[in-house]
């Protein structure tokens, strides 16, 4: 998702297909949306929308896994490996969002420790 080492991925290219929520934050900082200075309201609004969007995707994966487990448990026509793959994907997505949360909290604590 986030690639801080390669900063060229932060700029919006024509035909960019990468859905990175931080992409929009980076481009707002550079004024790529043509509005010049980005107000804090813009950044926060876009970021929370992006975060909600990503959480929806994680929730979608969880729902798919639940559905698959239920279908299998009631004797439906789904192979067992499909159930396990759905559950693994949901588990991985949840771990990723937990790690992102940890990183955000660390970053916030780092900032709040800064001496004025």
């Amino acid at each position, binding site marked *: 998702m986030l*690639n801080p080492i*390669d900063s*060229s*991925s932060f700029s919006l290219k024509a035909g*960019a*297909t*990468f859905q990175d929520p931080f992409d929009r934050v980076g481009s707002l900082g550079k004024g790529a949306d043509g509005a010049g200075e980005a107000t804090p309201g813009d950044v926060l609004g876009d970021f929370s929308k992006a975060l909600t969007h990503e959480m929806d995707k994680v929730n979608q994966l969880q729902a798919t896994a639940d559905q698959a487990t239920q279908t299998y448990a009631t004797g439906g026509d789904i*192979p067992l*490996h*499909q159930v396990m*793959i759905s559950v*693994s*994907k949901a588990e*991985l997505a949840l*771990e*990723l969002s937990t*790690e992102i949360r940890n990183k955000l909290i660390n970053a916030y604590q780092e900032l709040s420790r800064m001496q004025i």
Partner: protein
Amino acid sequence: MDIYEITASALTAQRLRLDTIASNLANVNTTRQADGTPGAYHRRNVVFAPLMAQANENAGPAPGGQIGQETSGGSGMGVQVLSIKEDHETPMRMVYSPGHPDANKDGFVEMPNINMVTEMVDMIAASRAYEANVTAFQSAKQMSQAALEM
């Protein structure tokens, strides 16, 4: 296709191959068709073919490019089952059994061209291929989890 789709298609294909082998073993003495008409059961084989991902505009540079696509695009190919074909090349077994209801006028019954040993070996191969794909999936999962610890 990402690793999860590739592995899922492989597991499904090997499962189907195992089902076919099991049906061959079950019908080793079957001398009629499913609807009761005369005609022995022919050994069945599955035909695999690679499965290209659906062409989409997200399949830009190969993985490892500067954007690092992990869940979209990719260059892997899964496997699909094209068809389950009957084997009419191998000769059928003729067994002398004049009292059998399906014996021909010489007293021979046409039995399926299924060699138990070949089927057992194919079954072992199919189950090892299934396990190999499960191992590939576990490796991919471990790689992802290692990446999460960065």
